[in-house]
């Protein structure tokens, strides 16, 4: 495979690891867009990222030419192989002091980043893939919802999404419709807002940040930013890991692995409105990495 030549993707910020899992001074190696990278936190706790080379063993003496842009945001180290924008997309809820924030999991999946985003946006699979957790038969209907591509914010927004969830709240044991809002503010990142079981007025935030290892492999970093004071981290993490573990075998059995942008490659239904918008948005941006672009 040739390395990434897609300028849009090269110029984006990409996540490469959770801050919480970095040990000060310890170097971690990873792969981003088929390039081998290393990163570490320096003495000030700032992330330093560089193109891996055998003679550089720590963050202090990285030659300027090998240094890459680096930032620490939402609990992750982000970098870029091109010229990234000044800011990363906003998640205002991250600043709310009463929320629990944690990296629920980092999972390797043999699939393209856009396929994984579509899976994250998709409610129709809840009863089949997350049976008895996020959905259950016969409650399979995906009710009408709204999708817009916000031009000024350059992101996709799906609102008024509802899906039947068994044991929707801790208060009652019956199932009920749960509300969701989805944002796609970055070609390989998505943020989900979901009714909080503890506070009716607010929503839990779950974000997935995909690190494109190559066109057909990702590391999925999952951020939780939730209103939950009772459960231990372990319990919250285990729940998200279960969900993710259920999606993984499905994602790895999608063919082709790269997301086809030709509207006639697959058969969309109304429930896939957000995915249709996402594919169009990627096409408009001229993205070629991780996708099969529409034949000219």
């Amino acid at each position, binding site marked *: 495979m040739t390395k990434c030549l897609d300028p849009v993707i090269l110029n984006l910020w990409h996540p490469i690891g959770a801050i919480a899992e970095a040990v000060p001074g310890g170097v971690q190696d990873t792969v981003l867009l088929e390039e081998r990278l290393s990163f570490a936190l320096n003495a000030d706790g700032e992330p330093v990222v560089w193109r891996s080379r055998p003679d550089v063993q720590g963050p202090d003496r990285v030659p300027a030419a090998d240094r890459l842009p680096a930032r620490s945001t939402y609990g992750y180290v982000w970098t870029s192989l091109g010229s990234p924008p000044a800011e990363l997309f906003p998640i205002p809820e991250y600043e709310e002091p009463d929320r629990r924030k944690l990296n629920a999991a980092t999972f390797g999946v043999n699939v393209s980043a856009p396929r994984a985003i579509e899976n994250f946006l998709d409610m*129709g699979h809840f009863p089949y893939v997350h049976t008895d957790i996020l959905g259950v038969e*016969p409650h399979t209907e995906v009710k009408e919802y709204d999708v817009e591509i916000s031009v000024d914010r350059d992101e996709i927004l799906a609102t008024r999404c509802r899906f039947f969830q068994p044991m929707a709240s801790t208060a009652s044991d019956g199932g009920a419709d749960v509300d969701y809002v989805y944002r796609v503010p970055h070609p390989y990142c998505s943020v989900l807002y979901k009714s909080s079981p503890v506070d009716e007025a607010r929503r839990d935030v779950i974000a997935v940040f995909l690190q494109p290892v190559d066109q057909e492999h990702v590391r999925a970093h999952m951020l939780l930013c939730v209103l939950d004071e009772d459960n231990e981290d372990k319990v919250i993490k285990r729940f998200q890991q279960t969900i993710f573990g259920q999606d993984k075998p499905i994602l790895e059995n999608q063919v082709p692995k790269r997301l086809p942008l030709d509207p006639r490659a*697959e058969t969309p239904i109304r429930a896939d409105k957000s995915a249709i918008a996402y594919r169009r948005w990627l096409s408009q941006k001229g993205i070629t990495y991780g996708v099969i672009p529409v034949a000219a």
Partner: protein
Amino acid sequence: MLEEARSRWHPIAATHDLQFRHVFHGQLLGREFAVWRADDGYVNIWENRCLHRGVRLSIGINDGRELKCQYHGWRYSNRTAGCTYIPAHPADAPARTITNRTFPAIERYGLVWSSEEPRGEVPDVAALAEGKLLALRGIPVNAPADKVVERLKAYRFQPNAAIGGEGAETIVEAAQDFAVALHSRDGGAETHGVFFVQPVDSNRSVIRGVLDQEAEGAARLAILRHHNERLSKLRDEVEREAASAPAPTPIEPVYERVSAELAEMPEVTTHGRKAALRVSVARKWQTADGIAGFELRPIKGILPTFQPGAHIDVHMPNGEIRQYSITNGPGETDSFIIGVKLERDSKGGSKCMHETVREGDVLAISEPRNNFPLRRDSIKTLFVAGGIGITPLLAMAQALKNQELTHELHYFAQGEEHLAFADRLKYLGDALKPHLGLSPDATGAELRQILADYRNGMHLYICGPGPMLEAARKIAADQGWPDTAVHFEYFKNTNKIDDSSSFEVALARSCVTLQVPAGKTIMQVMRESGIDVPSSCEQGACGTCVATVIEGEPDHQDVYLNDAERKAGTKIMTCVSRAKSARLVLDI
């Protein structure tokens, strides 16, 4: 060679790979297949890719009648590979054209054969007279097929009856591009072995050996082991040889694009009353007092996909056209079964079917159309059938039974001898509740009981004679069933049609305005000006001719729409309904 290989038949599995309710992952020339046997024995070979989001169907679920995708539960029918249900949109009937790509399947020599674009027949192998054969375990090899064939020419094995021996002489009887026929003799013992090489990809193959003699028990195991060992050794040699040459590039399968309309997920479009299919009456029998059953088989090819609740138009020898519901259960796609009740005052429809049509006759029928779709997201489904109204509900009940979804089928009939399709009813088990010989009043009382406990999420489907249907709808409404939970289908529209009004119809998309005079229907006027309008019953009962109203007030005279839909005024049956306003704008 691989180009030419596309038009040949190749083995892609052993018959014994197709276990009960299993889906086998087959491969040929870079393409993947989902291979599964339905309970009726039919072998399905499909593109291994769900049309929805590309998930491999080989990880799907074979329920014996349909294959269900793991990702969003789309169901695909045995034989036709047509999608019969999309759970995300339970109220909609999927467009008939959502059909997966199928490949031909032939079982021969204990193997399952297929081809991308078959020309000619499955190879005829003289050494393998059909009958008692032994198919060996398939041996996958990481090497191109031609290299494997070359090695196989030097393959040596013991005949079955001297499997423990050493000194057999093996000779090559024939060799082709993808097969080698060998003969092994050791004293009096001899065995023919034909070794087919399945080209999985440019650099991968499977050796599928077939011996001309069967064996049982320990002898069989010994034979299988013998070949397994020797073929594994052969594999190691070929792989070593292949590894020293540069690997050919893998074959990229070309996936067919879905049709342009499907990419937009439009409404189903069917036009006019067209009898697109020819079927022959394979069986005609009396299934109940006054009801004849007909089994209709395609003259050629296979029948199109149907969904529970669908009907077909039957064009009769006397020129009449009638609608009959398909009673088949899911996946029963080799024929359509319909039930025809002899109507006392028959105007020639049912009479012709009962008296004139015989087994062996050819009839013209339309494609199945589904204007009575079945939701499967109900927490409990009640079916209320009166007499011959059983037919669509029977198909529905079988579908729910197959998916183990909670339902009851209340079947009102005059007596035991009037219950049609006994075998299908039996399949439903306890879900079947017959109500026999009841007067209209007693029927009402019974219905009040049946419909007593409406809970949110339940659905009711009614089909039967007009008066009973009216009664059931009224009772349901009285007992709190909302319109959206009550679904019905009338056999015919017994309303007296008032066609005295005259008005103007503007067709928004076609940019024409037409004048509808008294005595003519909107449909007739549209057809006269060359506009293609789908229809079936043409009396406001079946729902095929529905149009969307953009502006104006419809004068509903059909029996298809429910009260809420009538009030909304956004749909109209163009075959009978008219306008109360001077002008009607339709989305046509």
